[in-house]
């Protein structure tokens, strides 16, 4: 009797809390549906080769969506992530082609690349958090600046990356494709970062800046660190792009910026900040990737591809909201 009375109000509440705690669940559902659709149209796309190809192409967007998530946690945004990818891409390719393609050079290039990404992130952080400019406008401006730097480093696309680099990216370790190892390492990194003080502090700042400041949190430093972390992950994304395209291109990342924002939103994070998960953003990036390949597999004529892609992303966004709402009510 007591149970019968107590149960009805508790049940929807617990599902609601479940969704609240794991806001990426709708994205996971959509991703699995898209994966099934892909398999339906092109069975080989969900085989090992197909999935390796998907991971190879979209690992960069996954990393970039993760990068974007950390600034969005704090209620900020970074419209320069794509430009950072381009800049890191041309810097490491130029460095490696100048120094030769041996392993030491590749490792040194990666250290330099991470340094460039970090520096770009710190520039964004200073402009947004210290000088208090609007994040959306300030990072748009820095994106032009970073793109300018990339064009100065490498005025035209096409310088090839050394074979060591892209062979490793496309290769296998212990018979398992390298990109899968990369996904595992990414998962471990995300898990560890989620346990740091910074993750909670970023979310607290995004939730209520005034409240966080009044709680004695170093708000400026926290937002700066968010941008710095974003820059580092953008550099990692640039490594993947370089591995995938095997060349330097000063404009390669530009169009990825807004896809990274879309992936974050698809993943269930709030653009206003204070709420979200990086896992959701990874799923969001995969949703975008799966939509692109599905559009291709169903044989959409090339002039219609953008239109269908755009519609499909819109539908995925709406579906995510509806799934969340249905589960909550």
């Amino acid at each position, binding site marked *: 009797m007591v149970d019968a009375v107590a149960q009805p109000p508790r049940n929807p509440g617990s599902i609601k809390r479940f969704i609240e705690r794991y806001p990426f669940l709708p994205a996971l559902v959509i991703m699995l549906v898209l994966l099934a659709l892909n398999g339906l149209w092109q069975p080989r796309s969900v085989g090992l080769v197909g999935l390796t190809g998907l991971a190879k192409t979209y690992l960069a967007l996954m990393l970039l969506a993760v990068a974007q998530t950390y600034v969005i946690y704090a209620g900020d945004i970074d419209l320069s992530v794509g430009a950072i990818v381009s800049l890191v891409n041309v810097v490491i390719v130029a460095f490696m082609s100048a120094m030769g393609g041996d392993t030491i050079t590749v490792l040194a290039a990666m250290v330099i690349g991470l340094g460039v990404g970090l520096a770009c992130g710190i520039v964004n952080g200073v402009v947004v958090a210290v000088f208090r400019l609007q994040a959306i406008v300030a990072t748009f401006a820095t994106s032009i600046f970073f793109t300018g730097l990339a064009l100065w480093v490498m005025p035209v696309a096409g310088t090839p990356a050394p074979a060591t680099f892209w062979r490793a990216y496309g290769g296998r370790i212990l018979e398992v494709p390298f990109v899968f190892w990369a996904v595992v390492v990414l998962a471990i990194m995300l898990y560890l970062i989620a*346990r*740091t003080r910074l993750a*909670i502090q970023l979310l607290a700042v995004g939730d209520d800046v005034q409240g966080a400041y009044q709680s004695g*949190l*170093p708000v400026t430093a926290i937002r700066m660190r968010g941008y710095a972390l974003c820059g580092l992950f953008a550099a990692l994304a640039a490594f993947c792009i370089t591995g995938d395209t095997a060349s330097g291109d000063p404009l390669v990342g530009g169009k990825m910026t807004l896809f990274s924002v879309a992936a974050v939103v698809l993943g269930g994070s709030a653009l206003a900040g*204070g709420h979200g998960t990086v896992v959701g953003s990874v799923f969001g990036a995969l949703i975008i990737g799966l939509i692109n390949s599905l559009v291709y597999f169903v044989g959409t004529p090339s002039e219609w591809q953008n239109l269908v892609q755009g519609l499909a992303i819109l539908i995925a966004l709406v579906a995510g909201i509806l799934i969340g709402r249905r589960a909550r009510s």
Partner: protein
Amino acid sequence: MSPPPDQALWDIPDMAKLSISGVSKAYGATVALSHGDLDLEAGEVHVLIGSNGSGKSTLCKIVAGSVKPDKGKVVLDGAPVAVSGPRAAKALGIGIFYQELSLAARRTVEENICLPDLPMTGPFVDRKALSARAARYIALFDGVTGEDFAANTTVDVLRADQRQLVEIMKTLATEAPVLIFDEPTSALDRTQVDRFFEILRRLKGEGRAIVFISHRMDEIFAIGDRVTVLRDGRTVGTTRIADTSPAEVVRMMVGEETSLVVPAQAEAAASPGAVALSLRGLSGKGFSEVSFDLRQGEILGFGGLHGQGQSAVLRALFGAAPAAAGDIALDGQPFVPANPRVAIRAGIAYVSGDRGRDGIIQGRTILENVTPIHFLRNRLKLASASTLRAKATPALAALNTKFAGFSHPIGSLSGGNQQKIVIARWLIDRPQVLLLDDPTKGIDLSAKADLFALVRKLAQEGMAIILYSSEDVELLANADRILVFNAGRVTRELTGTDRTRFHLYEAAYEAA
């Protein structure tokens, strides 16, 4: 450690845990605090009291570092300190409960409690230690936290009283020697308040110095050791609770010289006209069972502490947040303000003190800001600028509005002149009922004078007006009749010679 037995001991300066003197803060033309003094002993609960806008919260925020004072001195443990920000305050051992709360809504209760100082192991947050530490403070309120309250609940699903408890726990978790509580009990029920007071008494016994703000006299006399009264941004005096009485405290808040004097401009409209607006048992979010008649030519005042339902009633009448139950009659006809458009077309005008949110159209010209109501009431689709200017000019002139040209952006005007533009927008087509929701917030004295002169003139011309003001002086000087709100209900009506500060405070501060 109990409080020192006599006055003489308190006067020894190095005995004070915290001593604040001559602190002031102004925001543009608005002086929030003109001269704040406070001496806080270790081992006492020190009550701060004062009417709306007397500077209590500003004083607290200065001590907590979240507001930088323009002038003044803060001395902690005998040494002058500069509280440059909340982090500095934390380092100095000052913890504060914010009236408006400082919680992260999407974080859990335990994360919020530990947020200022997360326990770490190496580079990672120690979740176990965090839970254990939060649990200690949650346990203090064991049994009174209410349903659905758990350490891992996110704050956004909690009720107002539960959030207030979380903010209290967060403040206690600072373990600071100086604790400031700015209205910690406003949403709590009796058992929660009793539990909180038990905790305060224990902390006092441990030698903590505690500042406590509340508007409830019974609470103040139940928990306080000393009381410091603020009036109009100044510290009026400090006495021991044991040596005073509620009436005495109200008298200090009011000031002796004005306590029993009826304000000069208290002349009611010669002969109030017919009933323009009548409410019967109106209830909604934030107010219940509100009934009154408003006559043409009358200025009806809404008084009481902040947020006791005054604004909510006005917004319900304007259709911005419709009432749930009760009847409204406008000119004797039943009237249901389902949304602001219905209310505006029926002849209701609403002016809010929150210009940014409810009033001005930011970034647009003065002309565009004066004419939207004219468009709506006359269902205009197109109009020439010159016609509109001709209509707007007399409305703006009536208020002595200073502006360079109709095409200038609204942002080029001072707060006072912006508010005049907002009011003028209602005067092109005369409304029957004018609702003023704390209309003078943040505007200077001369603009206030212009505004109230106009309001009186409109009343004399037969308009029915409701004025809610958070400044009691304004209310007493301008309203013909005052309804005092307390916890969403009208608890007292002040008419004629009863319209004094004393009666207003007495009604506002009695326990609901």
